[in-house]
């Protein structure tokens, strides 16, 4: 499983509509956008990488209480063994009324031979 697939599944379990890179369609009052940040192969053995590290930015847009969503997302990420590398409140957009909160999450996976 990839980090992106796992995060999409997490968003679904929280009842949050989500999109990758951008959100298509009419935006609901709360939604998530995933932006891949970093992808690397690490821990080499026998000249082959054994692990994959992926880091993804979760951009939360909500017209509701963003603090409650921040807590729920943080708990859900930690439950799934993601490392949260950054959390940042970015402000409220006066034009659209959305609060914007950003969480960067990284996870290591054992690389499976294809």
């Amino acid at each position, binding site marked *: 499983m990839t980090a992106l697939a796992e995060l999409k599944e997490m968003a679904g379990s929280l009842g949050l509509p989500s999109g990758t*890179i951008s959100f298509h369609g009419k935006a609901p009052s709360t939604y998530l956008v995933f*932006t891949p*940040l*970093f992808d690397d192969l690490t821990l080499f053995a026998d000249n082959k990488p054994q692990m994959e590290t992926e880091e993804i*930015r979760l*951009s939360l*847009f909500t017209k509701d209480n963003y603090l409650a969503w921040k807590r729920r997302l943080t708990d859900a990420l930690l439950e799934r063994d993601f490392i949260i590398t950054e959390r*940042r409140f*970015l402000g409220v957009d006066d034009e659209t009324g959305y609060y914007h909160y950003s969480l960067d999450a990284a996870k290591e996976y054992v690389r499976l031979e294809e």
Partner: protein
Amino acid sequence: MARCEMKLPDEFMDKLSKLGDKFDSAAPKVLEAGGEVVLSQMKDNLRNVIGKNTKVKSRSTGALEKSLGITPALQDRKGEWNIRVGVGDSRDKKGVPDALKAQVLEYGKAGQPAKPWMKPARRKARKKAISRMEDVLKRELDL
């Protein structure tokens, strides 16, 4: 009672004593060398994302790239040396803060996809910056 004694090698002790005299004069040069590497990577990343895949024709003027810079290396109250690389508090011709444009590019906003360029630059430049700083430190301290 068990007793443990640890002795540092003479060569290492010599290096440490040299460090004490010269470190404060070397530190700004070391940080500037590392900062240059990070700045160069940030500029590369910015050029790769700015004005690309925009809904309307890009109106990029290059002001954001010009605003990128490095502060002088300064010592804080604790005696630690610091340097900052990034967007200063400048504004473009229309009065828009360059830092705001940098943030919107990096994190996006409702209806505008994020195009991360600062965090990937930090990741990508890390090893090269550390290696460059090590080289300059060795040169400055005659190690």
